[in-house]
């Protein structure tokens, strides 16, 4: 931690440079030399030498302040000898000093010279490369070249003795893990992705914190920065004085190519530090299709993928602790061998506890025993799963049980729950990206959880119970965010916005407040049936972009199976209401491939759309008809911790056939646009969602073959994924868990819902199966055996 005196000394030196009018590129060089010299001095001091790192830093900052003059070292000495004699003396000799052969003889002056000779302009390049470059500038065999080469040779011994003394590579120490990313930015598209420096991005001096944390989002910056969870966690961690939380994202292809060609690893956007130098690297797992990017990013970071390959060595932790959080962690098994720590439930609750324990233990991961002890300690906290302490057992290729490494560990890891959303942290000063992202808008979460209980919906189960934020707190957050961001749009976030008690009151009040400020309101996840005419009319008054509605299934029977509590009447009434007020665009969401589905259910989708269109035609005068209905069909993917986790998934061919059947039928329906989703990516999602520890082999094989950015249509490679599953022998079963009595790989996670309840819900759903399916029966459960 810096002292006040140290800070003041640095400030004073910077002021001197400014007052002297030293050109910007020279100041950049001086700052880099100063940082390098200071890091070397601090590391040597930690290892036992007595060195004044502040003096080293001051002298280095000022060493080239008058570089424009003839004998600049002497000139700077003259300028500084009264104000800072010690620094002046160092600067006087910095060009000509010969370095000692042994690390123990190093002085502050030697360190400044060494640092100066390791920095090219404003980049740390290392002593040898820098000096070689200087030697090359002279004619081969010339006196100057010979002199420089001799100097390089003379310094070999010193560099070796420094590395031995420090116990790690000099480059890593001297650069502080800082990478010359900036130098490459003019060569990539949208370089603003990689610079950090946003409004409200927190800047801390790494020297001032005990813990360096990097949050990793496994997709591009523009995607990650639009995700509210990342904003919450970065803000929450940076509120702590002992943590500096930075961010990293998956680089775009052009940056990746550069990183490979130039040999630099994954870096944080905030300080361009090698993520390997962090204490923690935390990934958020929002969707299964990001798993390949997690592995891909670890490869770019030059971090071994398996936790077992990241043991401490030589009294140091060569890699950060890897943490995962997010909804995919409710089945942590596919990536269980990758992460040291997996957070189950609301990370606002668990992350601070992990930070506290880590800070208390003081660099616990420098030794194998310390790391084990630390992980064992936190394994007892709610919401923390330490996968290496749990060993799955398979018999005849089936998962049979989970063995614990230590008897005192919990049998099941309970999810952590934020009880009071009003008291929970929510950013009032979110980071405002400098470049355009997917969503540039103020966001407030209305409530967490969903009271509906649709049987396919993982979010609906794992985010239970429903926790509501008060209207007062919501308005306060919005006011704060708007004042601190300058955004012109507010979005209300939740799983089902219309279910917020008092949603009408809230939206009306918000619109009254926002309209005069030229701010618009967006209400995603709004169910048509849950909102009144008045609200609809008011939203419609300035935005008629379209309304969405999710009947999910085409027949009442199947809607009952999935427990979607809406009737056809609801649907018709809502559309009628919306059209009467002047809405012209409505979108319906359906899912295909759900348990008990028959051809009648597919026909029901078409039938429903046709009848809705007919109803609207009846409402509108001929010639003035402008109603557009979009029917969007997605493929059902069985998710862990839902009643449908036991469902047999459709084959890719089945899904494709159903999509084409619908497409054909919709061709004949006027005024309806039909959209469907890629069946191949749904297949892979199914395999990953219900995977177990053996699934990692397939993920690694897929990444090896080149899979990444799987959620991007243009990047997804079905052929490579199929091959990866086949080659690796990882389970690829569409019906892996036909028996509700058999243990599931993710039973070790307790998401708060009783398994017996899920089973009874599943049985209720099956009981509603059509007793006499019209055409095909293959999706009906009876035919399973």
């Amino acid at each position, binding site marked *: 931690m810096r002292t006040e005196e140290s800070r003041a000394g640095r400030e004073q030196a910077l002021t001197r440079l400014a007052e002297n009018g030293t*050109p*910007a*590129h*020279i100041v950049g060089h001086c700052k880099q030399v100063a940082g390098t010299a200071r890091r070397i001095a601090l590391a040597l001091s930690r290892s036992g030498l007595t060195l004044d790192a502040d003096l080293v830093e001051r002298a280095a900052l000022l060493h080239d302040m008058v*570089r*424009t003059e003839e004998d600049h070292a002497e000139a700077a000495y003259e300028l500084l000898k009264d104000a800072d004699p010690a620094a002046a003396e160092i600067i006087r000799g910095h060009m000509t000093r010969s370095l000692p052969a042994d690390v123990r003889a190093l002085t502050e002056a030697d360190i400044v010279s060494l640092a100066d000779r390791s920095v090219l*302009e404003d980049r740390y390049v290392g002593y040898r490369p820098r000096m070689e470059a200087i030697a090359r*500038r002279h004619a081969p065999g010339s006196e100057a070249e010979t002199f420089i080469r001799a100097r390089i040779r003379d310094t070999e011994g010193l560099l070796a003795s420094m590395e031995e003394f420090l116990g790690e590579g000099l480059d890593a120490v001297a650069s502080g893990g800082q990478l010359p990313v*900036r*130098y*490459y*930015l*003019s*060569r990539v598209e*949208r*370089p*603003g992705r*990689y*610079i*950090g*420096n*946003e*409004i409200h*991005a927190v800047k801390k001096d790494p020297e001032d914190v005990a813990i360096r944390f990097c949050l990793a989002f496994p997709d591009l910056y523009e995607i990650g920065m639009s995700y509210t969870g990342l904003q919450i966690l970065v803000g929450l961690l940076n509120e702590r004085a002992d943590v500096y939380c930075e961010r990293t994202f998956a680089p775009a292809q052009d940056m990746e190519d550069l990183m490979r060609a130039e040999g630099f690893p994954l870096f944080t956007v905030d300080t361009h530090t090698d993520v390997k130098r962090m204490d923690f690297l935390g990934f958020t797992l929002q969707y299964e299709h990001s798993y390949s990017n997690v592995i891909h990013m670890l490869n770019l970071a030059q971090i071994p993928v398996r936790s077992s390959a990241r043991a401490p060595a030589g009294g140091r932790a060569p890699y950060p602790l890897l943490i995962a959080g997010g909804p995919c962690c409710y089945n942590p098994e596919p990536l269980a061998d990758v992460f040291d720590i997996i957070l189950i439930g609301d990370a606002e609750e668990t992350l601070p506890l992990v930070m506290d324990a880590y800070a208390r233990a003081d660099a616990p991961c420098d030794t194998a025993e310390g790391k084990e002890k630390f992980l064992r300690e936190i394994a007892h906290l709610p919401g923390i799963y330490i996968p290496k302490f749990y060993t799955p057992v398979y018999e005849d290729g089936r998962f049979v049980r989970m063995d614990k490494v230590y008897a005192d560990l919990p049998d099941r890891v309970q999810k952590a729950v934020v009880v009071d959303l009003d008291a929970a942290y929510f950013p009032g000063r979110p980071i*405002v990206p*400098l*470049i*355009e992202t997917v969503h*540039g808008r103020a966001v407030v979460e209305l409530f967490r959880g969903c009271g509906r209980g649709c049987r396919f919906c993982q979010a609906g189960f794992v985010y239970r119970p429903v926790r509501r934020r008060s209207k007062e707190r919501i308005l306060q957050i919005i006011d704060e965010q708007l*004042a*601190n*961001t*300058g*955004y*012109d749009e507010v979005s209300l976030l939740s799983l089902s916005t219309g279910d917020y008690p008092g949603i009408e009151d809230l939206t009306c009040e918000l619109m009254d407040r926002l309209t005069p400020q*030229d701010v618009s309101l967006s209400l995603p996840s709004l169910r048509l049936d849950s909102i009144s005419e008045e609200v609809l009319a008011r939203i419609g008054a300035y935005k008629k972009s379209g309304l969405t509605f999710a009947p999910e299934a085409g027949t009442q029977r199947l809607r009952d199976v999935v427990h979607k509590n809406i009737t056809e009447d609801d649907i018709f009434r809502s559309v009628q209401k919306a059209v009467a007020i002047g809405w012209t665009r409505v979108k319906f969401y359906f899912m295909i491939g759900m348990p008990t589905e028959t051809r009648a259910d597919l026909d029901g989708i078409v039938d429903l759309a046709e009848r809705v269109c007919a109803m609207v035609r009846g409402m509108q005068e001929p010639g003035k008809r402008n109603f557009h209905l979009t029917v969007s069909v997605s493929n059902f993917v069985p998710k862990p911790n839902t009643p449908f986790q036991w469902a047999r998934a459709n084959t890719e061919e089945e899904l494709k056939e159903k999509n084409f059947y619908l497409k054909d039928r919709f061709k004949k329906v006027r005024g309806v646009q039909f959209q469907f989703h890629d069946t191949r990516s749904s297949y892979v999602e199914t395999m990953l969602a219900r995977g177990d520890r053996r699934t990692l082999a397939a993920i690694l094989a897929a990444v090896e073959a080149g899979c990444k950015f799987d959620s991007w249509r243009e990047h997804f490679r079905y052929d490579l994924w199929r091959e990866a599953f086949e080659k690796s022998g990882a389970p690829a079963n569409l019906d892996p868990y036909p028996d509700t009595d058999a243990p599931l790989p993710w039973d070790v996670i307790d998401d708060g819902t009783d398994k017996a309840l899920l089973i009874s819900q599943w049985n209720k759903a099956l009981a509603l199966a059509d007793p006499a399916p019209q055409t095909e029966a293959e999706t009906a459960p009876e035919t399973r055996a």
Partner: protein
Amino acid sequence: MKYVIRFEKTDLMVFISHLDLQRLLLRALRMAGYRPAYSHGFNPHPKLSIALPLPLGFSSSCELMEVELEVGLPGGDAKGARSAAQKLNEILPDGLNILSVEEKDERVSRSYSALVTGAAYEILAKELPDLEDSVAVFLSQEQILAPKKIKKTGKIEQVDIKPLIQEFRVEKKWGLMTQFACRVAAGAKSLNPLTLLEAFYAHAGLPYNPAEITVRRTQIFFD
């Protein structure tokens, strides 16, 4: 009320594009509590414009933006303008620095972007051999040809850039760096200083690597 805001763009902010910069400045104004005026019409947009877009990667000490506010700055005088500059600087990230905020001279009826005639740049390049003679020979050509992408067709054609060069010389040497000064046409007919530099390197037989060159805009000239 129309205002003219002068600012610097340096450090990491050189990697922010013209459109992103406009959006950022608009947000900063709103955060500072000012209400930019919007155009009327089907798709309202804020009345904010930057006089001369700065190519990505260039720094500048002389950027100029015009903005119309619904309500004039409190105080309405020099003091109000100074405190506005200070307020904006507290909001803007490092690398964007507001130099001044002034009321726009009412006699200037056209927008500044319509008045731009040229701009001066300082170019820092890696250490080069003595170039004074090569520069003289380069400039003495009857025509100076450089490749230019024709917008309509997308084809690359050789065009004569000589009429667009107002000044080009070696200014000084900084140890390892050579500093050029150049002034080129901007506005209706414009020339990117790097196009000029690349043509010069080709003429002088030097290897051209844009990654080793930094460009700073130092002045914009108006009609």
